[in-house]
């Protein structure tokens, strides 16, 4: 079992399978960083994204590019509406954290309930087939889906880093994340930053759900389970550290994948949660790497 090709396969497939989780974790962590909110409405938005694509592809017979654009549209609309008519209202009322939490959770449940009424509870996939073409590269099976996933993951995180480092709006996000009131005094509109964050998170959500939906079946409740992995990555990466959360997600996925070498498959999930308990107890602020450039970047 310690054959290098097998190890390489476990690494590659583990990395690829992690990609949708990393994407949704980055969206979740970014929202938390900028708005300070554990946004469980993300589960509802994930369902909106998937079922928009599903409907566009399977009921309306539209091409995939159009379906993705439509999904971006509906997801952005949903999250902006939530921001303007839900979260902003709660902010103006100076509502407590618990109120925000309950609101976002109920919103997700409501969206998912409506989606269940429309689409039913049968598992659905975006495309009829869940297989994608495979090539063997150096003895390792690499599928098109794998490459798309890894590409979106790396490309998405890189694009986000560029955005946050080099654009005004990106720098404003960091400022608002740091101190929203102070940022306002610098002439930075916090609400605008919240809207920008909602749009970015929506893009990550659509990418994530496209990957998941083309690889296996989804029922309306699936996003509620998936958002848990986003929470885990965010906790481990440390609140406010978006790229660390992404890295943490990758790390968790690889731990799970490699655990097969010494654990029976059915213990994989248990290992994950056990690992998490230990991590939260020993690293309540997330795992901090020794101070070098990477860590400084991760601190954004």
């Amino acid at each position: 079992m310690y054959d290098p090709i097998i190890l390489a396969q476990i690494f590659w497939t583990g990395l690829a399978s992690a990609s949708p989780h990393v994407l949704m974790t980055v969206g979740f962590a970014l929202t938390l960083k900028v708005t300070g909110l554990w946004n469980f409405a993300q589960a509802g938005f994930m369902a909106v994204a998937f079922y928009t694509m599903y409907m566009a592809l399977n009921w309306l017979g539209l091409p995939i590019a159009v379906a993705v654009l439509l999904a971006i549209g509906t997801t952005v609309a949903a999250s902006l509406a939530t921001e303007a008519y839900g979260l902003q209202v709660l902010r103006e009322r100076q509502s407590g954290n618990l109120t925000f939490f309950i609101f976002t959770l109920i919103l997700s449940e409501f969206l998912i309930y409506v989606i269940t009424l429309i689409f039913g509870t049968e598992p659905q996939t975006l495309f009829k087939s869940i297989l994608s073409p495979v090539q063997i590269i150096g003895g390792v099976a690499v599928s098109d889906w794998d490459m798309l996933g890894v590409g979106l993951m790396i490309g998405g995180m890189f694009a986000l880093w560029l955005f946050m480092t080099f654009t005004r709006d990106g720098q404003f996000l960091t400022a608002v994340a740091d101190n929203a009131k102070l940022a306002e005094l610098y002439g930075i509109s916090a609400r605008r930053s919240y809207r920008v964050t909602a749009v970015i998170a929506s893009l990550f959500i659509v990418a994530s759900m496209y990957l998941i939906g083309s690889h296996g079946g989804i029922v309306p409740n699936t996003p509620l389970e998936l958002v848990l992995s986003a929470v885990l990555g965010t906790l481990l990466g440390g609140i406010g550290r978006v790229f660390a959360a992404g890295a943490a997600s990758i790390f968790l996925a690889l731990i799970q994948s490699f655990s097969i070498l010494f654990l029976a498959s059915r213990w994989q999930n248990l290992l994950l949660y056990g690992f998490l308990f230990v991590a939260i107890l020993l690293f309540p602020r997330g795992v901090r790497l020794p101070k070098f450039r990477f860590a400084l970047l991760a601190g954004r």
Partner: protein
Amino acid sequence: MLQIRGLKVAYGHIQALHGIDLDAKAGEITAIIGSNGAGKTSTLMAISGLAPITGGEIKFEGQTISAIPAHAITRLGITHILEGRQLFADQSVEDNLILGGYSRIGKDKAAVMAAVEREMDRFPILRQRRKQQAGTLSGGEQQMLAMSRGLMSEPKFLLMDEPSMGLAPLIVQEIARTIRMLKDSGRAILLVEQMAAVALGLADRAYVLESGKVTITGTGAELARDPEVKRAYLGG
């Protein structure tokens, strides 16, 4: 320059200001003194758009600003330097200044950098520390950075919340000197201070706030002589 009439501020059920009147003129330092919880910070927050106004009106240069959101108020030429020298601690001195310049100077990079240099001329210590993280500066240096950040946008009106807090007497004197210089350049300054002696020494006009109401008003010198003020705020 600034006129406040009947201002009421409430946070939920807690009434912080019960209707105050206040005037601040260009080229003058107006001070607000009072004990903790009197409503001094709420007054400044209301002006810069960060506190919920439940009644009354605020006019700046004749324009009502009570309903304008905070990030837009900065563009009108009002700068608020928050209590506690709040800065973006993880960003460098230079980045803090650049961010401060965005709002007023907009996308003109050259103008922003020129303003950065100007502020570093004003406080040379900032030039020394330009690449350092703002959170690693000393208290006095942070106060200078906070003021410079505020001045990046070339404001007409400065709101300063407890600039002397937690600073050594020597630094406080330097800060006071700078504030006077700013006033001399024609700006209006609304100064909130715990240290009443410092405030009254600087102020052309002063207000005493108690439990959200203005109780005494007059020139800085008048209040400094007033026996009640002396007893309550000047230690006898």
